[in-house]
């Protein structure tokens, strides 16, 4: 990275938050699962090499030496190319278990993103402009998901035969899920000549710049929440 570029992304305004540092039970090794084929003593396998190193450094690895471990998913790999957010997104796109197709679509979308960005970079004149253009599709994808995350949600509560849309705080998991769902839906919209990967690539680039359908949907949701703020005061019993 050149010294002149202080901020990683010049176009993107919402700061990036690491997917792995989200305060959730997903990162934890032990944890109580509601419905599981395994007894509660069985721990989740640690497949990320960084986490394994951390366990060994802190000494927790010794404690977990003789604990029974659950079977690992095929998709949880310690490969350099593995990303948990991309994995989640691929699973969401997948229909009727067709993981092959889902993965192909996501990879094609990323290729398209890279193509577009490379073209921009090659046509840019100054060195600074060239540095500013991000070509890593993974970074753009993460930024797009972050920019599309809503801050709160509307929950329908029925009282006296009327359904009120009450603004309510949202959990991290749900916000990520909603953002990814909106990206997928934006990729599935009309234009029959343009296929899903190309559309998705377009949407990812737009969302990373804080423009496009996904960000508009998020802002519309925020506007509606603000309009319905009166309902938030009630104590719904």
């Amino acid at each position, binding site marked *: 990275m050149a010294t002149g570029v202080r901020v990683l992304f010049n176009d993107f*305004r*919402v*700061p990036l938050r690491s997917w792995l540092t989200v*305060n959730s039970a997903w990162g934890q090794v032990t944890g109580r699962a509601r419905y599981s084929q395994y007894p509660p003593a069985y721990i989740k396998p640690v497949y990320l090499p960084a986490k394994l190193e951390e366990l060994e450094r802190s000494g927790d690895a010794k404690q977990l030496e003789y604990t029974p471990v659950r079977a690992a998913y095929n998709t949880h790999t310690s490969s350099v190319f593995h990303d948990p957010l991309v994995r989640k997104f691929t699973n969401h796109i997948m229909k009727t278990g067709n993981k092959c197709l889902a993965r192909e679509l996501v990879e094609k979308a990323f290729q398209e993103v890279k193509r577009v960005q490379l073209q921009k970079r090659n046509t840019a004149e100054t060195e600074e402009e060239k540095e500013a253009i991000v070509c890593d599709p993974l970074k753009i994808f993460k930024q797009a998901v972050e920019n599309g995350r809503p*801050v*709160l949600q509307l929950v329908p*509560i029925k009282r006296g035969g009327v359904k009120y849309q*009450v*603004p*309510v*705080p*949202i*959990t991290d998991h749900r916000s990520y899920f909603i953002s990814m769902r909106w990206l997928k839906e934006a990729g599935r919209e009309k234009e029959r000549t343009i296929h899903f990967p190309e559309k998705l690539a377009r949407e990812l680039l737009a969302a990373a710049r804080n423009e496009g359908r996904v960000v508009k949907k998020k*802002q519309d949701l*925020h*506007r509606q*929440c*603000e309009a319905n*703020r009166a309902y*938030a*005061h*009630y*104590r*719904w*019993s």
Partner: protein
Amino acid sequence: MTQGGRGRISITQQHSITQQQARRSTPHQLSTTMRLTPLNLRSMYLVNNQRPKNGRRATRVPFPFNGCLPLQLRDSVSGKSEKLQSNPCVQEMFVMFSCFKKNDFDQALCSKEIQTFEACHLNHLTNEKRKKEQERRGVMVPGEKRLAHKQLNHLLGRYKQPV
């Protein structure tokens, strides 16, 4: 013989009619004037030999108190009314909304308000989780104003009602 509203005969009258009929025991007269609907002999009006005050037939036949359920308090409290779906962090939400309105829903300019709102929500979630765990284990903090139904049942279970 006086008559009730709408040309109907009162219950006591009907009772006396049937008694008269029974005494006379003539089948022809019984079939024409006998009451077709059954009488509730435990009715308040029959027991106390009263008539309804408003002159109308009672919608529900009054009956003496029979006490189907035991006249005793239960040793447990139901948790149905406990789940008050209150909206947490309303104040932070409103502050955030005012910031949104000012900056035309630009999230980047309202990052502080959003952070405080999310922190409040996270705090609320952790508190709920802790309380639920305490309830499950039956741990009680002395001096707490409101106890959950599980904790109350634990206390009530110590001093049960005499059988």
